[in-house]
């Protein structure tokens, strides 16, 4: 067991589509509390359309990620189109020239995703956005690797950090996006983008772990 064959890992993206669709209502409800209640709808529409483009036998992982990215950027609109569009295109970039997805590569994917989102959205950690799930997840993964932990365990720690990061948004005051205007009133509920981002990271972690153990 060393890495995941990129060639046949395009199915990971299909799993993301399924995860988003399964949580469509939940994501919209979270967005409804301090946003406009459409996060699940937006995500589901964009991801479903990417899923359709990928078909039953998806291409290799980087291509699949790029299909997802460009579908989101072209069709989805909203804030999520550019933000997740950049996120997934940077993930794909990190795999350029690779045939196996090793632990290091996944670390690079997460760092690239983080940079991409910050570049287009110019938000910071602590602003109550998806960054608050993504940034601690990326750090936790790198830290686990630095501590010599194996890939699956690093994935677990990443997933836990993403969840903790998502939950940490409950206590934050939104600084960007629709809910920013609420000021103190935005405190007390989770951020929708952090919730979908955590879901995406967990789904990736599970999918990779399954493939690692096959």
């Amino acid at each position, binding site marked *: 067991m060393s890495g995941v064959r990129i060639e046949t890992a395009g199915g990971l993206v299909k799993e993301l589509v399924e995860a988003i669709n399964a949580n469509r209502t939940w994501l*919209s409800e979270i967005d409804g509390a301090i946003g*406009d*209640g459409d996060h699940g709808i937006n995500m589901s*529409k964009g991801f479903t359309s990417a899923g359709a483009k990928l078909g039953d036998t998806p291409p290799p992982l980087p291509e699949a990620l790029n299909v997802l990215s460009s579908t989101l*950027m072209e069709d989805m*609109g909203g*804030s999520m*189109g550019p933000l997740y569009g950049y996120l997934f295109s940077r993930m794909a970039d990190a795999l350029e020239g690779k045939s196996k997805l090793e632990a290091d590569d996944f670390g690079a994917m997460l760092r690239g995703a983080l940079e991409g989102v910050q570049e*287009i959205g110019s938000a910071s950690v602590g602003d109550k956005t998806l960054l608050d799930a993504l940034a601690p997840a990326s750090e936790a993964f790198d830290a686990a690797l630095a501590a010599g932990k194996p890939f699956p365990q690093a994935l677990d720690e990443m997933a836990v950090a993403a969840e903790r990061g998502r939950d940490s948004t409950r206590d934050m005051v939104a600084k960007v996006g629709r809910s920013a205007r609420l000021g103190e009133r935005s405190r007390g509920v989770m951020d929708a983008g952090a919730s979908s981002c955590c879901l995406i990271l967990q789904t990736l972690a599970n999918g990779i772990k399954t493939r690692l153990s096959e």
Partner: protein
Amino acid sequence: MNRIINNPDLVVEDAVRGYLKAHKDLVAPTDNPRVIRHHLAPQKGKVGVVTGGGSGHEPAFLGYVGDGMIDAVAIGEIFSSPSAKAFHDAFVAADGGRGVACLYGNYAGDNMNVKLAVKQAAAHGLTIKTVVANDDVPSAPKSEPQKRRGVAGEILMWKVGGARAAEGAELDEVIASAQKAIDSTRSIGVGLSACTIPAYGKPNFSIEDGMMEVGIGHHGEPGVKVMETRPAREMADLMLDHVLPDLPFESGDDLAVLVSGLGATPVMELYILYDRLSEVFAERGMKVRHPFIGNYFTSLEMMGVTLTIMRLDSELDRLVGAPARSVGLTKVAL
């Protein structure tokens, strides 16, 4: 929810198709189903004027494509920014070789998508300049104009930019006039009931019966204050108290005033509000040269009203008053 729809996930697709069939004398489709253009666009030698935004605000945005107004519009999901590709394709549809003015509203999604689209368009050799509307007073303090939302003031910005482009102005002149338009404009909304996005199926916020939300946004973004609904006269005064001191508007000012229902408010009530507004304008020595009362910028079936005031100089007065023909706004030369 009880509505006139087919598939709740396809309301925008279905509505745009119907719109194109209904208004062939004004608009035409493009290869991108989320972009509608003026039936004559691109007009060679004319600066193109583009806008775009989420759906559910009809007649905004697509209803302002027309003569002396917008050349192409990017259409988003309900309450959600159009994609970067839609903005880009709208630029292409509007470009008559003298550049395109993209006049849109200040929302995170729109900002990002326009930014990407402008980058792409530049890579294809198009010149795009932008003005971002931020007329909504309650959405941020005066000291942070970059945080203020764009609301119904966008319509007056489009009117001005569209008229300037129709006059044959250069891109920089169109941009300067549109920027002046929005800089001279202030708005506020009051919400009386919530609305339901068909795909979500239930209201995603609520306003208690008998309460009004002052400063509410066009997507139900929370306002600055929830209070008991006051009589229309007091509502008018309250709205003016937020808006007038902000520019500030002063005695002697000539104004364009736009009162828009949010969707479900009976039209007669807009006039009940306007009756008081115009009383105050008169008392304060301000003159309304261009009143617009109606459902100009809605939020699905929300109840409530927005007030938009623009201070006119002679240029803005001319451009607001210039002839225009569109579904949302028509001005006839008298």
